[in-house]
């Protein structure tokens, strides 16, 4: 019996090792694809035609939808930045989802809002009640603020989609700061390939530590805390490189709710945001794939790497834990909800490659990571593996992970090099190393907890998020947001 257990542990340890190699190799593949895509993008920058798009009277107008719940700390700066984007024709629709702080009052005072009795169409379902609709007196066609009873982010987005007047809807988090050309870049694929592009995601970077003035990131810096620095590297690897790689493969299934743009008619056709999923942004994209594949429609869902939306990352373990539980819970819910697509050839690359990948290398990865943390010492204890194997195993697995992070930093340095200081570069490299000692393991615990919560069918709760706002001018405003 003991021999059997030993053999089982030995085989399991090898299987886990093989899994780590496969996982990191898949990241490597995505990073290589992202590198190729960035090279392609940069070589074409001179004739990309962004200025022509800005000057064209035919550029598709965009409705930027900003759901806001207790965003008083940064809402004014965010809306100021959003109303000053470089884009020929667009509107900003802020949906105040029943804030209990001064979010609305701040907006009213800053933009001189006046109430208008808008008729809200019910093209996509919403559960809450619209209390009032306001427009900026000086610019009623550009800024609309909706007050509604609290119904959660999806509900707020659906109200915004209903009120959006333009053919493209861009969903942006209220704590996001957009680069001036962000909208132009993310909407450009719709102009280049209007018949096929259904949705486009923009890259989200971490704003902590950056100097933000008047709703603009004017100086990009590494955050002060190591916890956030590690997230910077993680965002580069997973979001910038990973999603660019998936986009190149034609298998992008996640567009961040912090910055994504969609054809309004398609979003209406599929019923808007889902009310019963916590990862409503990714769920929308998967549902869009589902719908368009079933219609045998030739379409594209793509990702643009620059310019960017800047978001505030959690700076405490407590908030980070909530966020990661929520993200993983979202993945588990989406994969459960769309399980019929997984492995189904009818859904092309999405069904055969992207979703199976998400099951094996996203959903299950923290389970395997935690298993390794338990089974490897256990194997050592029962003599199923020897110490020489164990430390080499750990070194290869984590060394490969470190290499992936460094390659991400390398490609970032070659292509966009957004962190100009040498000290920040060094901090990035150190963060890539530090990430392997504690951060990844704790993350795995949170992620497992999130997935288990989804499978148990617990109630979806957004949780609290402490935010400080961006403007570098001194501010004591720290607020807590608790979404529905």
């Amino acid at each position: 019996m003991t021999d059997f257990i030993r053999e089982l542990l030995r085989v399991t340890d090898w299987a886990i090792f093989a899994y780590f190699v496969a996982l990191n190799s898949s990241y490597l593949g995505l990073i290589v694809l992202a590198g190729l895509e960035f090279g392609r993008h940069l070589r074409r920058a001179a004739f990309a035609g962004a200025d022509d798009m800005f000057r064209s009277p035919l550029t598709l107008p965009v409705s930027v939808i900003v759901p806001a719940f207790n965003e008083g700390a940064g809402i004014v700066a965010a809306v100021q930045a959003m109303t000053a984007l470089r884009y020929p024709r667009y509107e900003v629709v802020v949906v105040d989802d029943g804030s209990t702080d001064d979010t609305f009052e701040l907006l009213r005072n800053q933009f001189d809002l006046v109430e208008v009795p808008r008729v809200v169409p019910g093209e996509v379902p919403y559960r809450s009640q619209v209390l009032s609709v306001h427009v900026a007196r000086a610019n009623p066609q550009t800024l609309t603020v909706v007050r509604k009873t609290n119904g959660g982010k999806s509900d707020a987005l659906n109200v915004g989609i209903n009120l959006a007047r333009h053919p493209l809807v861009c969903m942006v988090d209220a704590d996001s700061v957009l680069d001036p050309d962000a909208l132009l870049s993310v909407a450009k694929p719709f102009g280049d390939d209007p018949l096929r592009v259904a949705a486009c995601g923009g890259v989200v970077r971490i704003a902590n530590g950056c100097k933000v003035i008047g709703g603009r990131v004017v100086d990009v810096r590494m955050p002060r805390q190591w916890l956030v620095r590690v997230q910077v590297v993680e965002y580069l690897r997973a979001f910038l490189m990973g999603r660019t790689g998936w986009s190149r493969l034609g298998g992008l299934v996640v567009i961040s709710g912090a910055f994504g743009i969609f054809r309004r008619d398609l979003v209406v056709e599929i019923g808007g945001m889902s009310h019963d999923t916590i990862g409503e942004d990714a769920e929308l994209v998967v549902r869009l794939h589902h719908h368009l594949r079933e219609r045998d429609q030739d379409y594209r869902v793509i990702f643009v790497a620059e310019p960017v939306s800047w978001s505030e990352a959690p700076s405490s373990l407590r908030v980070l834990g909530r966020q990661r539980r929520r993200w993983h819970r979202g993945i588990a819910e989406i994969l459960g909800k769309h399980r019929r697509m997984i492995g189904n050839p009818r859904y092309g690359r999405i069904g055969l490659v992207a979703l199976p990948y998400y099951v094996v290398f996203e959903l299950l990865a923290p389970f395997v990571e935690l298993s390794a943390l338990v089974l490897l010492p256990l194997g050592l204890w029962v003599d199923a593996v020897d110490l020489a194997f164990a430390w080499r195993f750990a070194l290869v697995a984590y060394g490969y992970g470190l290499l992936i992070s460094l390659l991400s930093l390398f490609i970032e340095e070659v292509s966009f090099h957004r962190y100009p200081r040498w000290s920040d570069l060094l901090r990035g490299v150190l963060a890539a190393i530090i990430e392997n000692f504690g951060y990844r393991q704790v993350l795995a615990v949170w992620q497992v907890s999130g997935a288990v919560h989804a499978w148990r069918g617990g109630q979806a709760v957004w949780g609290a998020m402490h935010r400080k706002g961006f403007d570098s001018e001194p501010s004591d405003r720290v607020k807590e947001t608790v979404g529905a």
Partner: protein
Amino acid sequence: MLEVFTVTIAVLAVVVAVTAGAIIAVRVVRQIRQRRYAALAAGPRRALLSFVAGNGEEGSADLIAIPQDAWRAAEPGALALLGKLRGEAHQALVSVFLHRGIARKALGDLHSRSRVRRARAAQVLGDLELREAVPELCRLLTDRHLEVRVVAVRALGRIGDPAAAWRLIAGLDQNESIPSLLATHTLVQLGPEAEVTLSAALDHPQARVRAVCLDALGLLRATGSVQRMARILREDDVLDVRVAAATNLGRLGTRSAVEPLTGALTPARPTALRSAAAKALGDLGAPAAVPALSALLDDEHYWVAHHAAHALRRLGLGGLAALRAVLDEGTAEAGAHARPSNASGHAREALALAEIETQPVPVPL
């Protein structure tokens, strides 16, 4: 097996070290190159700015005499400047580019095997607004690569030679053809002289070609094509094309467009067409459309009623009076934010917006 692990660790260690070194090397090389380019470009940039500030009357010889390496460093800035200039300053800077052989090189690069070089060359020729390049750029409209065709189309738009119109229209009728919006914008840039070609293309068998030509005619305010556009609005088989016809009749701003547009409002027509026609009547600014639009305020389709209300708002006093009349009659009892569309709700919304638009914006002291 342990040896394999050991070798793997050694290889990983080397690759990690090389990658870390490469990150540093990339930054060092970039910084050195940036400094060198900045130093090289500083002189030419000053000369360029002084040349442009003087409207190109003096200093062209200095620019032509700039050594090649310094010019190469300054060229992206010079090209960007070219795009921002108009009139004599633009012509003067173009002549500098021509003297430096940039156009000749770009014409040669149009035949390059690299699609990136072909596209870059087309972009430069467009920036230079070089009419002599039109035949070569038209040839690029059948390039194997879409991105090259797209840049060629943009370049043709900047040059603005109406002779390219029919080639552009032919370019729309391809597999993986150029984007409609780009084609439309370019056709508009060709100017009113392209109107005859565009009008003739309204009979093209491809729906997309007809839609693009309608958009271009609308933006060119080609009032001479109103009858042909009205016929398409009534008779075309493809709904999107009819919607484009309605939208662009509104852009023409001519009274003769009122009758075909009001005809498209009847309940028997598709909702998208009625909605577009209502909006177009607002764009048209014809008070004669007030009765037809007023009748739509109670339409069961939100967008039809919404566009009718806002079209009335834009029609001035007559339209606003019609909106007030609807409110006074109290044809509907529902509240301001009721979900189903209703006449009074839409009228109230449009009137509120009209009131805001007519109020003077307070100036902060």
